[in-house]
Every structure is written in structure tokens, then in C-alpha cells.
């Protein structure tokens, strides 16, 4: 395992170097850019010059690249163009929001997906099974931003059950410890804050969970069906084991292998889904940050950092999946 981890780390470094360079030069080649973004309609040509000089865009590209690399190495990605604060602050602020959302979604997706998938498989070909399949197919075919939009309109406008947006009620003035509002509430014993945060979490989490849920259901179902025709299940039957034992020990355990992989893949997809969900629910996370950094004024410093972050997250998730895989599948473990 150590070797695997090491290899991942090396990969990580290589990817990052490649990406940074690529992104840096690409962004510099685009029209508009920081100068344009920093100046409002009122900028005079003189100000433009000042700014170009101030940002060192008058210097040769290689000097700029050198400076950029020097900063990045020291963990400094510059300041956001939109808000002027250090990129690292912006990101470390948005990160917990997205994680909170993603975790909630994954919990829903796994918590419902595996049981439902298993049940569907057990009642293969019956009404229940077919129903599940149709629903999951629709779940995959619906544009989730629209789903979110409908949920929001229905449950926050027509019937005011849930809050329309954000992570916590305005003016709640909760104490920020970790940036995970639910957690913070518990740590600081501000239980109303926790409840409120959970409350805001419901709709976005459901929206974000839709696709992974549908996929996990389908995979679980398929793989349970595969396992059920396996010889070792027949053996287990021949042993006269109790049904429950067979299901828990023999069927589920094996059926989960492909599901774990899928979950891994889906966590990746969650990042993408988050972009849409967060826009719908004005959720101050990475997703919003990405959209804002693009449409809200080509905030290249932030974009650069985000692209790198995406790569890092993704590779880390891989690692976790591999580890979890090794835990449940002995065949991988020994290799």
C-alpha cells in the first residue's frame, strides 16, 4: 500500500506541474483578463497603463512565469481579482461548504442507493424492480439544475417548508470554527445553528444526490444479480446457512466491490454536480466560486488554484477508493 501511496504522490506532483504551466500560459493567451476585469467602465487609458505596469504585464512572459512559479511554490496563488483577498483564503473558505454538501449527498446516495438496489435485485422482474429501474433512468435523464429549480420553487415558494438558499439563516451569527456549519454548531453548543444549517442542507443535498443515487441503485442491483448466480452462493446454500447469513456475509460483501468503485467515480462527478446545485441554491462553495470566477469577471488567480485543487481532490479520492477497495477485496490486498 505504501508504494501505491508514494506513486500517487509522485503522480500528483507531476500532474500539478504540468497543469500549472499549461493553465498559466493558456490564461495569459486569452483576451480580456485581469486588467479588463479589474477596471470598471470608468477606467481611463492612463489607469489602464498604470494597472498593466502594476501587475507586471509589461514584463516578458517568462519573467511573469518565474514570478508565478515562485509564488505558487510558496503556496501563494495571489489575490482574487473580484474580492482582493488572498486566493487561498477564498478557497479554504469555500471548501468546507462544498465538502459539507457533498458528504450529505453521498450519505443520501449510499444510504438509500445500496438498500434500494439490493431490494430491486431481490424482487427482480416484479413491479417494484421495474419501478425502481424506470425512476433511476429518469433520475439520470433529468437535468439536475432543473430538478433543483423545481424542488426549490415547490418547497420554498409555494409551500414554505425549506429555506430557498444559502447555508444558514441570515443574521444567525453562528460562530465559525471549522467552516463546517453543522459541526461548528455542535462544537460551540449552538444547537439552533446546527439545526438551521442542517435545515438549509436538505434540498441541495437531495438535488446533488439524485444522479449518484440513481447510479448506485443501478450498479448495486446489477452486481447483486451477478453475485446471486455465483457458485459460492450455491455452496453457501448447500451448507444450509440461514438466509440472513447468506445475504449479509456472502451476497452483500461481494456485491459491494463494484459499488465502491462507482462511489469513487461519483465523488468525482459530485464536484461537477456541485457547480450546478450550488448555483441553484446560492451555496457559497467551490461550485459557486468556479462560476463566479468565470462569469463574475474572469478571476484567473482563483481559476488557476481551483483547477489545481480539482486535480488534487480527485487524486486523493482515488487513493481513498483504492484503500477502501483493498480493505474489502483480499484479492487486491495481496498484490
Amino acid at each position, binding site marked *: 500500500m505504501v508504494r501505491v501511496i508514494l506513486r500517487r504522490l509522485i503522480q500528483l506532483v507531476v500532474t500539478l506541474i504540468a497543469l500549472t504551466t499549461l493553465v498559466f500560459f493558456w490564461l495569459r*493567451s486569452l483576451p480580456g483578463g485581469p486588467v479588463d476585469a479589474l477596471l470598471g467602465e470608468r477606467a481611463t487609458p492612463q489607469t489602464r497603463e498604470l494597472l498593466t505596469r502594476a501587475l507586471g504585464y509589461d514584463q516578458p512572459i517568462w519573467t511573469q512565469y518565474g514570478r508565478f512559479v515562485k509564488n505558487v511554490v510558496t503556496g501563494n496563488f495571489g489575490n482574487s481579482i473580484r474580492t482582493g483577498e488572498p486566493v487561498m483564503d477564498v478557497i479554504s473558505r469555500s471548501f468546507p461548504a462544498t465538502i459539507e454538501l457533498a458528504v450529505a449527498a453521498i450519505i443520501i446516495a449510499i444510504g438509500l442507493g445500496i438498500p434500494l438496489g439490493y431490494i430491486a435485485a431481490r424482487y427482480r422482474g416484479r413491479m417494484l424492480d421495474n419501478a425502481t429501474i424506470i425512476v433511476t433512468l429518469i433520475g439520470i435523464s433529468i*437535468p439536475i439544475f432543473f430538478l433543483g429549480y423545481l424542488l426549490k420553487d415547490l418547497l420554498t415558494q409555494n409551500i414554505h417548508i425549506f429555506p430557498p438558499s444559502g447555508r444558514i439563516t441570515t443574521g444567525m451569527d453562528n460562530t465559525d470554527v471549522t467552516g463546517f456549519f453543522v459541526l461548528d454548531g455542535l462544537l460551540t453548543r449552538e444547537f439552533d445553528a446546527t439545526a438551521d444549517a442542517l435545515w438549509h442542507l436538505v434540498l441541495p443535498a437531495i438535488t446533488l444526490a439524485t444522479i449518484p443515487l440513481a447510479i448506485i441503485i443501478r450498479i448495486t442491483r446489477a452486481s447483486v444479480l451477478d453475485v446471486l448466480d455465483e457458485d459460492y452462493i450455491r455452496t453457501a446454500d448447500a451448507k444450509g446457512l440461514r438466509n440472513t447469513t447468506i445475504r449479509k456475509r456472502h451476497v452483500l460483501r461481494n456485491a459491494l466491490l463494484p459499488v465502491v468503485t462507482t462511489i469513487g467515480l461519483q465523488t*468525482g462527478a459530485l464536484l461537477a454536480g456541485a457547480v450546478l446545485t450550488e448555483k441553484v441554491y446560492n451555496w457559497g462553495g467551490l461550485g459557486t466560486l468556479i462560476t463566479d470566477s468565470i462569469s463574475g469577471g474572469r478571476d484567473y488567480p482563483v*481559476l488557476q488554484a481551483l483547477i489545481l485543487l480539482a486535480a488534487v481532490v480527485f487524486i486523493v479520492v482515488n487513493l481513498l477508493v483504492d484503500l477502501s477497495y483493498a480493505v474489502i477485496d483480499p484479492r487486491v490486498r495481496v498484490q
Partner: protein
Amino acid sequence: MSGIGGISTLADHKRRRIEELTARTSEAGGVSLIRDAGRRLLRNPTAMVGAIIILLFLIIAIFAPLVAPHDPVQRFPELTKDLTVDSIPGATAGHPLGSDPLGRDFASRMIYGARQTLFVGVLATFIGLLFGVVLGAIAGAVGGWLDVLIMRLTDVMLALPSLLLAITLVALASRSTQWTVIIAVAVVNVPIFARLLRGSMLAQRESDHVLAARALGVRRRDIVLRHMLPNSLTAVIVQATLTFAVAILDAAALSFLGLGDPDINRAEWGLMLGVDGVRYFEVRPELAYLPALAIIFVALGFTLLGESMREALDPKNRR
């Protein structure tokens, strides 16, 4: 384990899934499989439902000018007459679905929408397929360092979640046009197709009829073109069917993020839903509901067909 030290094992898992799918759909290869796969498809109701939906969609798309009552971009005085930014006239004589936010005939736009959506979906899929297949074929047929290189490339691409990659590409494009969107969505699929084709070509390489052909001293080029490619393509076709659905959904998502096709004259369902549909949801919900339903149906159609094709081609299900 990630073959030749891949960029990420999730990519590997994706890859593994793709390759095992390939193995299933193409190992037995050969006409016989395809024939009785076809037979099984015809017996499979879900497949038929999918096929019917797609057929309907194609008909509307192709014959849009005949079906549609009006030109989709023309503004009609009778509609603009009582059109304001906060009220959009509904059904009137000659305009069964009433107006869109610019006084154009909504019905016609829905119908032409099929055409544009087909256009986007097909191109995005096809471009992805084309590059994917070429890369995959080279990797699979030539092998060696070229193979390694291409596979590393696809690894990197698989490392980013698809929509995220598309968003980034659009953001990094110097100008935004319909093509930016199409290409962004297409690029996402290149690695998948490449993997797919390569995988199945490798499977082919070991398969009996190829070995036989080689034993008979058939030229390598002919083996690749006559024997390996045709059989491998079945897998690719299945994937393409599924990709189409994803493509139109991604296009819609981009429009919603304001990164889609900027020309709102173009009647494309994703665009109509992502821009007008959302903006005028409270003024006239149909502007959102109809395109959304259309998208869901078409996506559903392609998914249904694709999934059942995959199942049908899966030798495990042969009896």
C-alpha cells in the same frame, strides 16, 4: 492496479469498467452475436420504447420545417403586441403554444428545437467518437510507446469530472460560440471512446478469427481494418448511444451556467431551458417545462436503447 502507472486509479477504475464492458460486448464479436443480439433487442420492450422515442425525435427533427407552423426566429407583431418583460402572451390563433420572451412562435421553436438539439448531440458525440476512435485504434493497433503516450493522455483527461472539464474548456475558450459548447462537450468523451476502442481491439487481437487470419498471413492493415475494427465498433456504437444523452444534458447545464451557446436566436432545448426557461419561470412555466420534458424524453430514449443494446450484446445473457 493502474496498468503502466496511470495518473489516477479512478481513471483506472473508469478504464477497467470500460474495458470489461468492451470485453463483454466484443469478445465473442462476430456477426452471429450481433444477429442474435438484434433478435434479443426486438424481444426487449424497453429497447423498443427507447427506439420509438428516438425515431419520433428524429422524424420531428428532420421534418421540422414541415411540422412547424412558423419560422422559429421570426417575431410576430400579434405576439409582440401584448408582450412585455413581465407578461408573455399564451396560446392565440395560429400560435398554439403562444409566444416566447421575444415574441417568437414558441411551438415552432420547440419543434425546431428537436433539430438543433439533435445537431448539438450528434456533433458532440460524433466528434468525441471520431477522435476517440482514431486515438484508440492507433493505440490498439500500433501499440508500443504510442499506446503508452495516448493512454497517459486519456488518463489525464479522465482525471477531471466530465462537466467540470467542459466548464473549464468553455471558460478557457477565447470566444464563446455554439462550437465552443459542442467541442467542450465532445472532448470530454474522447478518452472514453479511445479506451473503449483500444480495449476491444486488444480483446480482438487475441480472438480466434484474428489469430486465424494472422496465421493465414493476412496483412496487418487488413486484419485491423477488416477484422478488428468492425467488431470493436459494436462496443463504440453502444457507448455513442449513451453519450448522446449525456451530451445534450451537459449542453443544457452549460447554458444554465451562462456558459452555453450565446446566440439565443437558435432554438435548442438546452438553451431554451437553461436561459429563458429559468429566467421567465414565474411568468410562463411552459417555457421551462416543455424543453425540460423534451430533453428528459430524448435522453431517456437514448439511455434505454443504449442500456438494452449493451445488455443484448453481453454474452453473459446469451441462451
